[in-house]
């Protein structure tokens, strides 16, 4: 094991450290984390609506929350919270993204956030088009004239509505993330580089810092926004029928999110997280670019779909596997599904050291905190725990994955705080689907059966093995 660790330290850990320490990837991770106050508040609003509006009809015939005065008002209030959070999650992210890039380079963070937001918004269409074309529609000339005068276009058979001055919500929610990641990055980097080259307006020292900081950002920010604007203009000449955001959605975001939905991608992600943990590396930190920017974005799409049309819309248009699915079906008790390991230890271990650690780990384990058992047992670098620690979550993920795609349980559509105890976690995460805790239970039972033989095998090992003190 020592030779393996030495090899890992020489070849693998520097690479993991490079990925995990790469300043742009850290900024991306922190940008996602930075949106949490808004996305969690929005998720609470959606979840409250799920509990008050969407869950009761499953159990009470004829229930309609929107007809009960108090509940109707609470649903309306939750709607306001959603408007300011998840409905514009992409917009919140793009500011956080620019802010964190600027912070990574030690330049004015506020201006970084503003440049990133302005540059990304610049490419969004401000107009809308809609229309009615009904069989049997036959408008009289006076109506047609009135509609045309109002600025829309009408013929006897068709009405085309157009307008300008609108920011479409579906351009500012989770759909906005990939465009924001690219445009926000390019614009902020131009701004950052010019700031670092000191191409700025300098004011006398007597000017208050807030004013001189803002003035210093003017040239870099203007240059960044003009570069992006010229890009949008060239893009509109080459692809006249689409905005850059629409093009990004079609050619990059949707295929990438689609790829993430394959069984192989889901299992590989789960496997790599476990591998990193086992070798003492913070798996979700290293894999944050995938977990947050792919599975996390898919989750936000599902939360918004749930708000618009409940679980049915998520099933028909949403993603089957999202960031929270790992927590709901595989990481009960923490990464590795260690809650069932604790149970296996308490039932089958004869080792005093295991039993002591097991008892101490129950409380934190219920809330998905597993440091006591990861380091106390330990699991990290413990050869006997290698196979179950990798295998159990992969099997659990598979159970959750197939249960979801076979329609046995609703996809995860709510953002739930990771310290929520397991069964409650999957129940809430699926918008109150009572079948979800059963799927979690099945995954737990199977994981338990995977862990038990290894716990029993550990009974036969010398507890002091590998523990000799080295000066």
């Amino acid at each position: 094991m020592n030779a393996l660790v030495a090899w890992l330290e020489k070849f693998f850990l520097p690479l993991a450290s490079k990925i995990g320490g790469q300043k742009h990837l850290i900024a991306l991770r922190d940008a996602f984390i930075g949106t949490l106050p808004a996305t969690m508040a929005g998720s609470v609003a959606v979840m409250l609506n799920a509990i008050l509006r969407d869950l009761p009809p499953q159990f009470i015939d004829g229930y309609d929350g929107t007809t009960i005065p108090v509940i109707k008002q609470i649903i309306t209030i939750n709607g306001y919270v959603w408007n300011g959070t998840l409905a514009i999650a992409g917009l919140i992210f793009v500011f956080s993204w620019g802010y964190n890039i600027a912070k990574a380079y030690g330049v004015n963070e506020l201006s970084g956030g503003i440049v990133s937001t302005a540059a990304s918004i610049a490419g969004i269409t401000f107009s809308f088009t809609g229309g009615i074309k009904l069989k049997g529609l036959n408008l009289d000339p006076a109506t047609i004239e009135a509609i045309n005068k109002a600025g829309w276009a009408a013929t006897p058979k068709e009405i085309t509505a157009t307008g300008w001055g609108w920011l479409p919500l579906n351009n500012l929610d989770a759909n906005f993330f990939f465009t924001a990641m690219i445009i926000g990055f390019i614009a902020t980097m131009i701004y950052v580089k010019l700031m670092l080259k000191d191409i700025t307006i300098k004011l006398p020292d007597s000017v208050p810092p807030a004013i001189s900081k803002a003035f210093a950002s003017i040239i870099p920010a203007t240059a960044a926004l003009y570069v992006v604007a010229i890009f949008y203009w060239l893009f509109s000449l080459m692809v006249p029928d689409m905005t850059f955001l629409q093009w990004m959605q079609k050619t990059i975001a949707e295929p990438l999110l689609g790829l993430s939905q394959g069984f192989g991608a889901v299992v590989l992600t789960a496997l790599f997280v476990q591998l990193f943990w086992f070798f003492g590396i913070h798996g979700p930190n290293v894999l944050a670019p995938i977990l947050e920017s792919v599975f996390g974005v898919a989750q936000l799409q599902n939360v918004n779909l749930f708000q618009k049309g409940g679980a049915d819309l998520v099933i028909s248009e949403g993603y089957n596997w999202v960031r929270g699915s790992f927590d709901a079906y595989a990481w009960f008790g923490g990464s590795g599904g260690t809650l069932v390991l604790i149970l296996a230890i308490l039932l089958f271990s004869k080792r005093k050291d295991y039993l002591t650690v097991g008892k101490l780990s129950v409380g934190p384990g219920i809330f998905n905190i597993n440091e006591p058992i990861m380091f106390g047992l330990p699991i990290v670098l413990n050869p006997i725990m290698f196979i179950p620690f990798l295998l159990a979550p992969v099997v659990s993920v598979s159970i959750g994955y197939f249960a979801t795609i076979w329609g046995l349980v609703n996809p995860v559509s709510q953002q739930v705080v990771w310290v929520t105890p397991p069964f409650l976690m999957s129940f809430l995460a699926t918008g109150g689907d009572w079948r979800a805790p059963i799927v979690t239970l099945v995954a737990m039972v199977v994981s338990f059966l995977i862990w038990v033989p290894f716990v029993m095998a550990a009974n036969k090992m010398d507890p002091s093995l590998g523990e000799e003190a080295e000066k």
Partner: protein
Amino acid sequence: MIEISSAAYQDKIIELLNNLNKDGIQFSYKEKKGINLYFETNAGDLEKASSLAKSAIKNQPWGSVLYFRVSPVK
């Protein structure tokens, strides 16, 4: 004394803490048991010493991805 549980970069952790001197708090490597490293410290407040050691490790280029635990040993 404080205990640092880490599977990786143990040598770097020892070197870092042996040379750390912040707010008068110093550490001296004592022994290693499996993945656990033990350090003597002159700090009266072991919680403060643990938190100092933790942030010192996290601030290293190799420390940001490390999965480790620092706890006081009373």
